[in-house]
């Protein structure tokens, strides 16, 4: 009997994985979006193989070099190859954003589950506190946290989690409330199942779609925020190759070496457009109203 249950659960997990892959492939924008994101990940991972240059080694000889066979996109004021720095630039943004997004979405979903299921005063208090965090502009929260704890990678991750968990909670909570009103939940409650059993068995499989879309969307916001932070000088520290930082460093040279600014901008925009397309496509093929995701 148990073997049967286990095997059926296994097939179900495989079935839902298949369903997600099918949904992605069935939508052109999701396919393109995920393609762009995966491309960025591959480029960031294989950056050391793809380029002969070191992203942080200065080379006075080629300072502000024009694009040429040696430096395809030219070099910046310190003579570092712009293409190299752009390729490496994804490493920081991708790692930090990925970690931050995973934690934000997981934590937000968990809090949402508890708030929605318990209801009453628990729900009220959670909602109130999260609303207060949302009331502080994201950038200000980030600045304060970075000033207090420094600008290490994990601090940035922590800051992004603080800033965005509230939003995830709002969205997932609304989705969970919708599921909780269904009769199969009433059946589970009447069987006397506990909160975590109901959340895990009955609720989360039904809000997985929402959570996945939420993941893609929050990732795009977090990339945006982290690069803005780097741009303002509160994120990645020089000479780390990072897109936001590169724009900040090179924008005064825009008239002389426009590619030094344009290259990181294009890279960043590609990643975020990819994430947005993925979120759009997923939402569409799952039949979720993506704008409700924004609102919560």
């Amino acid at each position, binding site marked *: 009997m148990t073997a*049967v*249950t286990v095997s059926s659960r296994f097939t179900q997990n495989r079935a839902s994985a298949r369903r997600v892959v099918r949904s992605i492939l069935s939508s052109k924008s999701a396919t393109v979006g995920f393609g762009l994101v995966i491309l960025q990940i591959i480029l960031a991972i294989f950056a050391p193989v793809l380029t002969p240059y070191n992203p942080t080694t200065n080379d006075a000889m080629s300072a502000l070099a024009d694009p040429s066979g040696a430096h395809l996109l030219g070099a910046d004021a310190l003579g570092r190859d712009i293409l190299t720095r752009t390729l490496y630039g994804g490493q920081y943004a991708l790692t930090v954003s990925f970690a931050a997004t995973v934690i934000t979405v997981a934590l937000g979903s968990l809090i949402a589950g508890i708030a929605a299921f318990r209801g009453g005063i628990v729900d009220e208090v959670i909602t109130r506190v999260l609303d207060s965090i949302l009331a502080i502009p994201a950038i200000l929260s980030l600045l304060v946290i970075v000033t207090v704890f420094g600008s290490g990678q994990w601090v940035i991750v922590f800051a992004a989690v603080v800033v965005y968990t509230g939003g995830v909670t709002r969205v997932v909570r609304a989705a969970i409330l919708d599921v909780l009103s*269904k009769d*199969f939940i*009433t059946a589970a409650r009447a069987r*006397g*199942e506990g909160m975590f059993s109901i959340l895990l*068995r009955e609720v989360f499989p*039904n809000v*997985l779609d929402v959570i996945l879309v939420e993941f893609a969307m929050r990732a795009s916001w977090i990339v945006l925020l982290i690069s803005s932070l780097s741009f303002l000088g509160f994120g990645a520290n020089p000479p780390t190759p990072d897109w936001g930082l590169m724009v900040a460093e090179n924008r005064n040279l825009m008239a002389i070496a426009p590619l030094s600014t344009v290259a990181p901008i294009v890279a960043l925009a590609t990643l975020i457009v990819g994430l947005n397309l993925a979120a759009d496509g997923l939402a569409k093929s799952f039949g979720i109203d993506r704008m409700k995701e924004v609102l919560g």
Partner: protein
Amino acid sequence: MNTTEQVVGVDDLTVSYRTGSGANARQVDVLKNVSVSLERGRVLGLVGESGSGKSTLAGALLGSLRSTSFISGGTVSVAGNDVFALGSAELRRFRINEVAMVPQNAGNALTPTMKIREQIAESLHGLRGDKRAQRERAEELLRLVRLPNPRAALDRYPHQFSGGQQQRIGIAIALASDPTVLVLDEPTTGLDVVTQAAILDLLLDLQRSRSMSMVIVSHDLGVIDKMCSDVAVLRMGEIVEFGGVRQVLGSPGHPYTRGLIASVPRIDRPGIPPSLDHQALDADAEWVQSDEVTLRVAPVDAPVVLSVRDLSVDYRRRPVAGTGPTVQGVSFDVAAGEIVALVGESGSGKSTIATTIAGLQRPAAGSITLAGAGAAAGAGRRAAGAGGGAGSAARGGGAPLAATVARRSKAERQAVQLIFQNADTSLNPRKSVEAAIQRPIDLFKVRGASVAGALSDVELPGSYSERLPGQLSGGERQRVGIARAISAQPQLVLADEIVSALDVSVQSSILRLVDTLATSKQIGFLFITHDLAVVRAIADRVIVLYLGRIVEEGTVEQIFANVSHPYTRLLLDAVIELGDEHSDTLEKVADEVPLAPPEHGCPFASRCPIVRDVCLTVTPPDLAVSETHHITCHATLPELIHEPAFVAA
């Protein structure tokens, strides 16, 4: 003007949509070679089950199709216009002058942000610009549809009206432009039976007094029979039969029509009607539906499994002057193998009682006692606190159940199971049939139960265990819901409107299943429904609820015999069945149930035709008609005698 002028002519109409893409692309016909016609002043009924294309046909009369559908053949002509040949300006003029539609659910069809006056004025094209004349005409129209307090209603918004009132407003708006043809899409579906009767009476009056041409879409043969002069029976996009209503419904020529008519339960005939076998019908066009009804046999001297005593439930956070608790003083028993029907209109508290028994709603007062497993486990829990008494059920006297499910023992929770109205939401869409049925078996460690056994109990093939709910039909999903409930081997099943959302041909097969399960497994059923014909078919005993109070209780024969509570009688009179005379209109009573029960006296006093002063202040006494038949009323027995609604079979 020629009196036999044709106002609607649908000629060989085919409506299709495309599905799939690339190599899988194919064209699906929603309507296939449909031809119907209607002469001025007559009423055409379009009847069929879900998916028959009847609403598509109604929309086509107004030149409106779903955005993905298109006409792939034939024409629609209404009042001399070839509807689908009209340009957009002509189409607008056609909709202004010639046709109007009363949509299915006026609650969704009225614009929520506009006042009623504005929404009527939109259709008063002759009075454009003259605010005062518009207002007067709008008020006149609301009076015509018998909306209470029409003047004040003009400045209200749609959500401030009840469902029945919204439907009346919808009719008023449709009448405003004085259309040649009025199309009504399921005009009374979703309304309570008394409200439905009142709206249909109104429509019939309007039709006769203005000799209006109407097209009525309905799944309800009784409604069609009462309202229409002609009828077209649709099945899967095709017209199987078209003609005068008396002829088609009185002596149907097509086996589908015959089967459909035979599968409708009736209040004047006991027993569960045969179900329509679509497969047999598809295989053999000459197939003849058996008209054999399954007679329900009530258990004799069965032990009581559930006793509810003096149950009260109160949703109010604080007392509101003049109102009483939602449910008050409800007492009844359910015996093993017995099917007890809990009947009432919306707001009667019938579902509240079920959720309270299930431990999902805390009662304000009263006790719920479960015999057998519950009692043993309850005693064990109180004595030792350990062991939980799993499975060691000893039948016998009972101890009251805890108020909330969290404080009930496993055995107690196992003993009470639920089945729901909406099969779509009662199963987790992400879990297979097997997982859904296996869960209670695992949780309660039910011995001797298996998914395969439960599936065969509900007459589904074992291969269905791998399926997801989305791969099942509505009736099949409802069967899985039943299998999940009985796999726990309960003593009591709470069945909340479990056949209300199903097509009539599926309905009777589910009823027959419930009958079999109750008898073979000795499960007591509390069968909640608003449908008296279903009650007549399935119930052993009946409890009639009004505003959370029991007004009448008796065996099914007693309830349908000629001594009734005035409320039961109102319900019986309001039922519209195929083949009735349809000449009587309902006595002029308020057709709307008040929002909350009164604090004192009889709950029905505000609508009762034989109300007296005492009814407003004193709780009515129990009037025992016989040992098993009780009426809660201040009247005397002779006052409660009426013509039986039927001749006993």
